[in-house]
C-alpha cells in the first residue's frame, strides 16, 4: 500500500516557476509523478513544461484538478504563508521543502494546522518518495528533491530527518536488492509537521512495509519518543542510525534542529535509548541497510 502517497496521488507544486521548484517539478514529471498543477501568484494561465497548468492560487488549482498533495518550493520569507494557503484550500498532504523558515513562523503555522485536515511534512525536508514498478523505479510518486533512480519498490519503510543521509540508506537497500515501500524525509527543523513517531505508526499499520530504517541526529527527543513507542507497539524490525556523534555541544550543525541541548540529546544518548528499545543501531552510516538485514533475519 505504501504510506501518504502512491502512484495515483495528484500533486501540485507551489513555486513551480522558480528555478528550484521548476527543476524538481520536471524531475518529478520525468519520474512519472502525477503532477497536475502548479501555483505561482501572477502566473495563472501559463503552462509548465507545456502540459501542466499554472494557477494564481492553491484553491483554484485544487478545484480545477483535484490535487490532494502539494510540494512547496517557496522562499523562506513566504513559505509559512504558502503552507497556510494550502491548508485553507484543503490540501491533505503538504510537503514543505524550503530550508530557512524562521522558527517562530513555524511555531504559528503548526498551531494553526491543528484541527485541519492537512498533514504537513517538513519544512526543510527532501520530501517523500513511493517508488514505482518501472525501470529505475519509474512510475512512482516523487514529491521533493530526492534522486529517483536510487529507489526500488519494495517492503522497507525509511524515515529520516536528513536528505542526503536518506539517499545513502535507500541506495544501500536498493543495491542489496531490497526495495522501499515509502521514503519519508521529515526534515531538519526543530519545529516540523510530522515526526519519526508519526511515520513509524503509519509504517506499522501499512501492509506493504515489513521492516523500517529510522535515521535521526542530535537535537531534540523525537527519536527517543519514537523508540519508546516502538518498543511496546511496533511489530516490525527497525534499524536506526543517529548522526552527530562528533558534533561539539551547543553548535547548530547545519540543520536548525541539530543542536545538542543537554545530555539526553547527544548521538550517544539517543543510540543507547534506541538499543534499549529493541532497535538495531548501525554504528556507521555505511552499515544502515546491513544492520537492518541482520535484525530482519535476511
Amino acid at each position, binding site marked *: 500500500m505504501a504510506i501518504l502517497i502512491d502512484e495515483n496521488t495528484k500533486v501540485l507544486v507551489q513555486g513551480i516557476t522558480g528555478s528550484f521548484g521548476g527543476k524538481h517539478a520536471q524531475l518529478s514529471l520525468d519520474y512519472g509523478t502525477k503532477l497536475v498543477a502548479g501555483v505561482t501568484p501572477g502566473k495563472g494561465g501559463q503552462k509548465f513544461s507545456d502540459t501542466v497548468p499554472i494557477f494564481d492560487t492553491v484553491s483554484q488549482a485544487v478545484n480545477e484538478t483535484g490535487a490532494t498533495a502539494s510540494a512547496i518550493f517557496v522562499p523562506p520569507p513566504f513559505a509559512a504563508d504558502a503552507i497556510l494557503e494550502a491548508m485553507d484550500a484543503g490540501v491533505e498532504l503538504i510537503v514543505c521543502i524550503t530550508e530557512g523558515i524562521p*522558527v517562530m513562523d513555524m511555531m504559528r503555522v503548526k498551531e494553526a494546522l491543528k484541527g485541519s485536515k492537512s498533514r504537513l511534512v517538513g519544512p526543510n525536508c527532501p520530501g517523500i518518495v513511493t517508488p514505482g514498478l518501472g525501470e529505475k523505479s519509474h512510475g512512482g510518486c516523487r514529491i521533493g528533491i530526492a*534522486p529517483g533512480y536510487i529507489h526500488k519498490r519494495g517492503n522497507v519503510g525509511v524515515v529520516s530527518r536528513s536528505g542526503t*543521509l536518506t*539517499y545513502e540508506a535507500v541506495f544501500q537497500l536498493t543495491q542489496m536488492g531490497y526495495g522501499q515501500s515509502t521514503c519519508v524525509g521529515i526534515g531538519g527543523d526543530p519545529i516540523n509537521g510530522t515526526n519519526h513517531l508519526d511515520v513509524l505508526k503509519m509504517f506499522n499499520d501499512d501492509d506493504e512495509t515489513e521492516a523500517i530504517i529510522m535515521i535521526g*541526529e542530535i537535537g531534540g527527543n523525537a527519536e527517543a519518543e519514537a523508540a519508546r513507542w516502538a518498543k511496546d507497539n511496533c511489530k516490525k524490525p527497525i534499524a536506526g542510525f543517529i548522526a552527530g556523534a562528533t558534533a561539539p555541544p551547543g553548535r547548530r*550543525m547545519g540543520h536548525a534542529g541539530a543542536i545538542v541541548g543537554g545530555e539526553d540529546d547527544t548521538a550517544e544518548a539517543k543510540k543507547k535509548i534506541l538499543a534499549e528499545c529493541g532497535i538495531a543501531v548501525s554504528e*556507521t552510516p555505511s552499515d544502515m541497510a546491513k544492520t537492518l538485514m541482520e535484525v530482519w533475519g535476511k
Partner: protein
Amino acid sequence: MNIHEYQAKELFDRFQVPSPQGRVAASPEEASAAAKEFAGAKLVIKAQVHAGGRGKGHFKNGFQGGVHLIDSPEQAAEFAGKMLNETLVTVQTGDAGRVVRKVMIAEAVDITHEYYLAILMDRDTCAPVIVASTEGGMSIEDVAHDTPEKIFRQVIHPLLGLQAYEIRKIIAELGLSGDVAKQFGKTLKNLYKLFIDCDCSMLEINPLVTTPDGRVLALDAKFGFDDNALYRHPDIVAMRDKEEEDPREVAASEYDLNYIGLDGNIACLVNGAGLAMATMDIIKHYGGEPANFLDVGGGASKEQVTAAFKIILGDPNVKGILINIFGGIMDCNVIAEGVIAAAKETGLPIPLVVRLEGNNVEAGKATLAASGLDIVTADDMADGAQKIVKAVG
C-alpha cells in the same frame, strides 16, 4: 549569533527592560568620560567579550580579572588601558583567550536577591517557555540537578502570547509582592515582547536582581537569535562582531557556506547537514579526527565549492580532505568542476579522496578523471573514510 553585553543593553533599553546604567568605551579617554557622566555612583568596568567567566579570568599581560570596581574616572582610564586591546582568558574562552576591544563602564548595583529568568523556544511543546527560579546568580544546570523544585516553567500559547494571569503565576512562584512584583511583571512583559519581536531562540538573564532601593534590574544577559530570521532583523545583523568568531567560519559565511571549525586534521566537504555530520562520525570511527563540519548545500555553485575548498586548504591543521557527495539537488559535476578549479589555483599539497554518488555522477567522475590531478576516488562512504584516514596516517 552572539552579541556583547553593551549591545544587549541597547536592546533592553529599546524594549524598556531595566538594566544598570552603562556606557561603552573603546579607549581610556572614553572610559574616563563615561565614569565622569556617572559621577557619584559606584561604578564597575567590564571587559566586553562573547564569553562568560570574565570576573575570574586573567589577561595575558598579567592584569587579573575582566571585571573591576572603579573608584574614579582616573582609575577607569587606568584599568581600561590594561584591558583594551589585551587578551582576556576565561574558563569559557579556552587558552587562546579573546582580544578585548571595548569595555563597559556601568553602575555597580547592590543586590537584595538574585533571580533566574529565561525565555526559550521549547522543542517538545513547539512554543515559547518562560523559565524562572529564585536561585539566580549560579549555574542553572546545578539548580536543575540539586533543587529542581525551585525551577518554574510556564509554556506560553504560540498565538495568544503572554497573558496577565501567567505573569501573576510566575510572580507568585518567585515569592514577590508589592511594588517589586509590579516592576517584575512589567519587566517580564517587555522581555517577552523583545523575545518575540527579535525572533530570539533564547534569552537568559542570570541574575535578574532586586535592589535595596526597590528596583528590578537585568544584570547580565545571554542572547541567542534564530539564524533563519536574521534576514528580517538587519539591526541585529549589524551587531555581529566578526572578530569574536572563528575566522574560518567568518570566511565561510561570506560565501553562504555552513561551516563549523573543529580541532582535527581531516577536512570534509559534504552536501547535506545529516550526511556532513555522518561523514565526521565515520572519519572518527575509522580512527581519524575531523577538522570541520561543512555542508555546501544543494544549490552550491562552482564558485562556492571553490571557496569552500580554499577555506579548508587555508586551515594549517588540515592534512587531508574527504569530499563526500550524494547529489539530490547537488550536481556531482558542479562539485567536480569546483574542486578542480580550486586545486588548480591553490595546488593540491595534501591527499584528497572524493566519493561521488547521485545526480549527474557519471559526468562528475569523468571530469575528475580527466583533470590530471592526484585525486583518489572512493566507492562509498566507508571506503572514502578508510582511504583518507590511511593517507593522513
